[in-house]
């Protein structure tokens, strides 16, 4: 790695991360407790939450299947001094992240309550609705830099479509987020009505990694360790990308913008090359594709940068970025989680000022129309 920090912090690093303002496409706010949602959640579902809780396709009710590397997968310095869990205190988030990094816009990504993994679809829809309201009331309305997404579970697609309508009317949401691990791969036609509506509303489709779809995290089966499960996030995004492209989603919805969040970007070139390499062999199976798969990727998909890859040689990261394309990359920090990327130091390879501007700001500005 080219840039090992073994010096005191420079003055300019103490104030602003870079000379440009940052758009951070992945910030995780958290509820303090379930009662935060009471004002947004009907009594019937409050009661359900209390008595039946989250019914997931995982073994435990109190934790994740693979114990994570830190409590609540958070940076150990992200616990607010006022109490509460990381990401639950707006003032502390401002002090620790939004202000020092000069975040111009931060896109909220809510993972609380296993929001996309609820087996009871009505309950899932109720908490998605509550979380959508909570994002505005607790975050976006209190700090105009923070932007909310409409969270919907695509397996209850009628409920999801209704929620999209309800939220879109407000004009306050900047994206529609769906589950990365739904009942079926994301390209399948049962999910197309959501994509069609996203295209009509001109809202990007956001897909943040995580969740539990009931299938093993890898095509080879269930791993034993978190270090395996964590890397399998890259499998999930690669499989979803190929599903969406091969089923013809960009072909059918040519104005739809799709953003993969927290999948990193190292896996993208090989995935595109492999799709293209075998396209001729399988073309007759997917005659609805009019172009080589990588061409759809380069026009319809964007990728947030965290967790960034860290090759030993800086030039390798540079090659990777060029293969993916500077225009496809949207900076994200993943604050306050442990595998967070620091905007000042994460890109350990030289970038021109114009390239930095694209990755850290203008690409996202264009996708989200800020």
């Amino acid at each position, binding site marked *: 790695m080219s840039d090992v920090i073994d010096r005191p912090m420079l003055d300019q690093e103490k104030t602003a991360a870079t000379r440009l303002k940052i758009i951070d496409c992945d910030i995780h706010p958290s509820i303090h407790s379930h009662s935060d949602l009471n004002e947004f959640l009907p009594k019937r579902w409050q009661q359900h939450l209390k008595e039946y809780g989250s019914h997931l396709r995982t073994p435990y009710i109190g934790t994740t299947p693979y114990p994570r590397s830190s409590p609540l997968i958070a940076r150990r310095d992200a616990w607010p001094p006022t109490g509460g869990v990381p990401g639950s205190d707006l003032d502390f988030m401002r002090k620790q992240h939004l202000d020092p990094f000069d975040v111009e816009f931060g896109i909220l990504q809510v993972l609380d309550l296993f929001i996309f993994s609820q087996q009871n679809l009505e309950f899932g829809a109720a908490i998605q609705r509550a979380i959508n309201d909570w994002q505005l009331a607790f975050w976006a309305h209190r700090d105009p830099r923070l932007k909310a997404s409409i969270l919907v579970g695509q397996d209850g697609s009628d409920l999801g479509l209704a929620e999209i309508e309800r939220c879109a009317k407000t004009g306050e949401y900047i994206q529609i987020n769906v589950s990365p691990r739904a009942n079926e791969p994301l390209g399948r036609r049962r999910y197309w009505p959501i994509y069609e509506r996203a295209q009509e509303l001109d809202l990007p489709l956001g897909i943040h990694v995580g969740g539990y779809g009931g299938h093993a995290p890898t095509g*080879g089966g269930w791993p034993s360790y978190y270090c395996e499960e964590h890397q399998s996030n890259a499998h*999930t995004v690669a499989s979803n990308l190929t599903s969406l492209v091969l089923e013809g989603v960009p072909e059918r919805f040519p104005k739809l913008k799709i953003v993969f969040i927290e999948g990193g970007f190292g896996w993208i070139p090989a995935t595109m090359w492999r799709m293209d390499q075998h396209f001729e062999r399988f073309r007759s199976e*997917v005659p609805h594709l009019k172009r080589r798969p990588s061409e759809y990727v380069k026009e319809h998909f964007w990728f947030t940068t965290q967790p960034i890859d860290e090759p030993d040689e800086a030039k390798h990261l540079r090659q990777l970025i060029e293969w993916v394309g500077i225009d496809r990359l949207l900076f994200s920090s993943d604050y306050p989680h442990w595998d967070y990327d620091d905007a000042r130091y994460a890109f350990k390879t030289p970038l021109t000022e114009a390239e930095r501007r694209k990755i850290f700001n203008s690409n996202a500005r264009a996708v989200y129309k800020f």
Partner: protein
Amino acid sequence: MAVTRIDCDIHPAVGGTRTTLLPYLSDHWKEQVVSRAIDGLDLNSYPPSMPLSGRADWRPADGRKPGSDLAMVQRGAFDQLGASHAICNVVYGAQAVFDPYMAADFCKAINDWIAAEWLARDTRLRASIVVPIQAPDLAVEEIERRAGDNRFVSILVPSQNEMLLGRRHYWPIYQAAEKYRLPIAIHAGSAYRGAPSSIGWPSYRYEYYLAEAQAFQAQTLSLIYEGVFGKYPGLTVVLMESGVSWLPAFMWRANKTWRGVRVEVPWVEREPAAIIRDHFRVTMQPFDAPMDATSVADIIDQIGSDKMFLFASDYPHWQFDGDDPVPPHLPAGLVKQMCEDNPLETFPRLKLSS
């Protein structure tokens, strides 16, 4: 003397259990396959009629499966593609059978068949031992049975089984593999026990084939993190038909994750990428690289070890057109190494003269 070019991955095809394998089955299973019509075990991973499964010019005119005719394979793999030796990997549904004893007898029959009808008829051929991966103790028995025959140079296992290959369940196989200097050849192919990807069942065979690369990645991590190479330091694993270009970013991410979470697996004392370079080899069809020379050079540089690459045509699978299985733009020195030196090092039982 012709140049040495060891093709590490070609595919003779089993016609069927009631035809090809019948003479090699035990009496019990002979009666069973006939009386119950137990046949049709071609894997869903490779339907013989699918374009990928057989290049047009490598398909028998009478409609039999590509790879089923020795003379045709000899013409294709040796005369046309220029191999001096070739390793036969029989990818067949025996390794997906649920009944472990049926699986074991079918695997034994495949190995007897390949020895009698392929290896005995062409001294340029070698083979991987097809093992009943479903039952490691029976797999070890099959390895022991072949251990004295140096024409068997590796152990074939599919890339998607009942569980990830690093699990302790499979360790007896690795112990035998190390003892008899047989690398584990993981070949693309699924027993369809679970969805081929973490997001579920794909619609297309194309999509399934793309997901194979990720199954190989998961197997690689599993073997490393479960500590297989600390336990069996002499073990080599060959990824066959895995694709290659995913390796750099995969190694970077593995290193990054291990640096932070290695407390889970303290027996893994080196970076995963270093373990990969020492213990893993990869066949070069498909390579899945872009078509420009610069990117190919960058990928090779990023992988960081010329020893990992093995020449392979994947005959009769349709991975390329024309007569040269070597992916374009590879440096000449590397091509020579992957055709001769690397295979000889990877498959220590493979002696050119025998």
